[in-house]
């Protein structure tokens, strides 16, 4: 399957990490798309939860939400509750996965969506945490999906909006954080995890045709490299078809130009 976009590659690769019968608390954009792909493939019993207070959304293909609080996000849901309540489910330990994008992530998995520069006088004031801080603090296991660029993969984030392993080792547990074991980071170049002892980010798999050197080049810190680097299987025709139908609607229908266009451009944002 030719001309696979970076988004498609990331979403499909990430979708494979989701096991059946689990509950995923997904941000909009790639996390939601990846979760929806998983539901249509290996994880038909995956429950997708969105922070608008939505449990078990099934989504209407071609009508994907761009906010977790809008009607489209609630399509087919089994339950609607409120925002605070849904996060309290997370705090109780009900959500197997938290699934996030990241504007800037560091070697310990800390995410910054607050400021470039200082908080007092930011060079760029980013939108803020949204639910990302809560998702990474409260879900049982956290997955991150984002594009692999040096400006995104930095040694230390300017500001820890959403805590990963903080300064590594047991610093996360010492801060009182109970949930939020960081499982994997998926990018258009690689699959990464965190080394158990140091909690530093570690290369585990490469997208087809990508070299370790290329990943290092696109990473703004000294990346650990695991012992057996897996070559990731490229998206199958079936996976791409599922992804594209979800994004654009059934192929037979008129292309839902606006919605598809929007979904394409969805950056990492409020989870």
């Amino acid at each position: 399957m030719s001309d696979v976009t970076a988004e498609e590659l990331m979403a499909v690769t990430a979708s494979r990490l989701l096991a059946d019968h689990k509950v995923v608390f997904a941000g909009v954009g790639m996390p939601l798309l990846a979760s929806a792909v998983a539901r249509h493939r290996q994880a038909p019993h995956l429950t997708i939860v969105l922070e608008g207070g939505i449990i078990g959304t099934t989504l209407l293909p071609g009508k994907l939400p761009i906010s977790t609080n809008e009607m489209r996000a609630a399509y087919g849901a089994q339950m609607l509750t409120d925002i605070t309540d849904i996060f309290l489910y997370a705090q109780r330990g009900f959500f197997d996965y938290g699934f996030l994008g990241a504007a800037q992530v560091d070697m310990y998995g800390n995410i910054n969506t607050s400021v470039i520069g200082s908080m007092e006088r930011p060079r760029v004031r980013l939108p803020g945490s949204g639910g990302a801080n809560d998702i990474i603090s409260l879900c049982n296991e956290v997955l991150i999906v984002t594009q692999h660029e040096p400006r995104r993969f930095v040694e230390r984030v300017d500001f820890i909006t959403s805590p990963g392993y903080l300064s590594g080792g047991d610093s996360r547990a010492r801060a009182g954080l109970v949930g939020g074991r960081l499982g994997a980071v998926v990018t258009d170049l690689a699959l990464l995890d965190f080394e158990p002892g140091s909690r530093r980010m570690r290369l585990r798999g490469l997208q087809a045709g990508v070299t370790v050197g290329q990943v290092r080049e696109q990473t703004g810190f000294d990346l650990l490299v695991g012992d057996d680097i897996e070559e990731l299987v490229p998206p199958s025709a079936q996976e791409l078809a599922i992804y594209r139908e979800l994004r654009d609607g059934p192929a037979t229908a008129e292309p839902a130009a606006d919605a598809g266009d929007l979904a394409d451009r969805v950056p990492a944002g409020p989870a």
Partner: protein
Amino acid sequence: MEPVTVMAARAEREAAGRPVADKRMTAEDAAALIRDGDHVAIGGTLYSRTPMALVFALLRQRRRHLTVSRPLACYEIELFLATGALDRIVTSWVGIGLPWGLAPVFRHYVERGEARYDEWSHLAMGLRYKAGAMGVPFLPSLTMLGSDLAGALGLQTVDCPYTGEQLAAVPALNPDVALIHAHRADMFGNVQVDGYRHMDADMAKAARTVIVSAERIVSPEEIAASPAQTMLPHFAVDAVVAAPYGSYPHECYGLYGPDFGHFTAYAAATKEQGPAGALRYVEENVDGHTGFAGFIAAAGPERLAALAADAGELMGR
């Protein structure tokens, strides 16, 4: 953050009697209840069930030194900033919506230090309203720990007296005013909402003054016919404003979808002109009409029908 004692919040609540009266009024009369310097909490989230008719009425007043809080904030923040009404934003996220990228007017004011943005996590915002609604000065939580948000806000911790575990102590927020948009309300202020409730119930219960706009004003009998759907009782509400399409251009669950074209036009104007674009938007869309009904009329019946059809498709109608 300004700690609110339980004593003070309760005393204020007890002192403010709310007679069972006909609370219907215009959006303008309701907005006149808001004073310079007030903390105004805005219901809904991002572009869902935003009390836009009330927001527009407040914009028209050109209040000064407001603080505005919301779960996730949309372009209304920029309108308040551009009209000089807003000193401080208390929320977890500010933007128009993901596809429109960073919000330039918001950036303009915050990056220059001309407005302050207290950034909390989304759950922390919810717990702040909930603590205020519950009448306690804080709630314990496992969120925000270890983050730089905690340090920037001066978030305190509290130890569980039973287990010794350390938790974040999320402080209560008792807004001066809450603005809520609902599907239905009776004249006394019994309020019903369809679908999810965002943080509206806690926000209103926490607030000193509560202004509710509703798509439809219904009889008390219609409220009593489905009492489990009532989100707020009359004694938690001060003013009721009739506002059909009262969230437009934002969406109202089950009734009409968001007008993304409107967002896109706004985003283009502010990208190009910055604060002047936002100010011009207010002059045209708010000041340019005698009331919110004029703004709705300007949107035109075709557009409104299309947005209603969008909602209908999602509701299986």
